[in-house]
């Protein structure tokens, strides 16, 4: 199935067409270069069209309270929108320290690692 299209008679080259040509090249590069660069990084990356290419495991966080009690953290209380590409592990510990200033530490359990990471906190005085 084909639908024929048409073009007007050849028009003289103008500055407008030159700008369009530059825009075409610029947009084409913007379409191709970012996803190519993102291919070189761990997956998935934003701006790379890497849908469902990988699943990053979500760690479990637990608060170590001043009395030694361990309190699991419900991440849905702290994360607005889950994105597989987002670097939550980098920002969540500091965020949890801000929200729970009384915590003595944060335990991080990764589902794919046997060891338990402990991040010490400085509990603020009551």
């Amino acid at each position: 199935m084909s639908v024929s299209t048409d073009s007007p008679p050849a028009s003289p080259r103008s500055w407008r067409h030159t700008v369009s040509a530059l825009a075409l090249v610029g947009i084409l590069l913007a379409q191709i270069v970012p996803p190519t660069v993102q291919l070189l990084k761990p997956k998935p990356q934003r701006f790379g069209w890497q849908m469902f290419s990988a699943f990053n495991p979500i760690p479990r966080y637990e608060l170590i309270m001043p009395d030694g009690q361990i309190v699991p953290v419900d991440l849905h209380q702290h994360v607005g929108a889950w994105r597989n590409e987002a670097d939550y592990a980098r920002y969540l510990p500091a965020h949890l320290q801000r929200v729970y200033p009384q915590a003595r530490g944060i335990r991080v359990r990764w589902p794919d690692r046997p060891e338990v990471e402990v991040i010490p906190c400085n509990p603020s005085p009551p």
Partner: protein
Amino acid sequence: MQPLAALTGYCSRQDSAAPLAVVRAIVGLDIALCAADCWFIVRQFYQPDRLRVPFDWGGTLPLPEALAVPFVAVLAGLGLLLAVGIATRPVGLLASVMMFYFLLMDQQTYSNHLYLLAIEAGLIGLAWLGPVGPAGQLRVARWPVTLLKVQISVVYFFAAVSKLTPAFLSGSVLAEVWASDGLVRVPADWQTPAVLQSAAWATVATELFLAFALWSRRWRGVAAVLGPAFHLGTLLLVPAPLALGVMIFAIATLAPYGLFFVDDSPAADSASAAPTAAAAANPSPASPTHDAATDS
């Protein structure tokens, strides 16, 4: 002909607006749907004790809570205006800018469907010329339409290449996807390593095929059947919370398919240029002065 002259010559080409008008209507409605998705994010985003996740450059873009809902409402309105074809050029470009802004607010507001729609709205806005010439026919510039088609291939190509990893091809990623409740649940008995690996390879092969087949006169018919089937399969199998985003993405990806069926080869151009020139020189009330598009 020198490359720059050839390029500027190509950028002077125009086509009937009718095929892009269909894409514009679908993309506009999809933007309105995407605005609903953004609203769900916004609703969560401003709750107390919620984390902002800056981009790698260390920043987030500000959007005061009081403006968040109006922002999303305006985006939905722009989508509907685009769908019905009112002021397509400014509406498309503004919707694109707003979607890029939302996309870059922080790491959590990014989504592939929002990114794709932002690009499509911008290209539709750039392409739309409105009534042109004495006959007042609705026209579009060809080069943004070509870029719109390129974008669809880029999406499929990089989606396929990014999956060429041992982890994906082992089937472990699909096992994660299928483990959650989707609209359709793959029975656990079927989720054997052989099935998962075959499905992983088939996914990559399908995406690679679609990236190139849409440009092929011989294969685009097959692609036009396989593409929607592939997106429907994905929609049915993804975890339920992801279904809305996957549906918006599928609509945005499938909307420009029809553009691949428009014959813009030099032969078609030369065959139809003469009647067009004659019609422009001698407009008649009987001749159609407006396409299916409704843009002003």
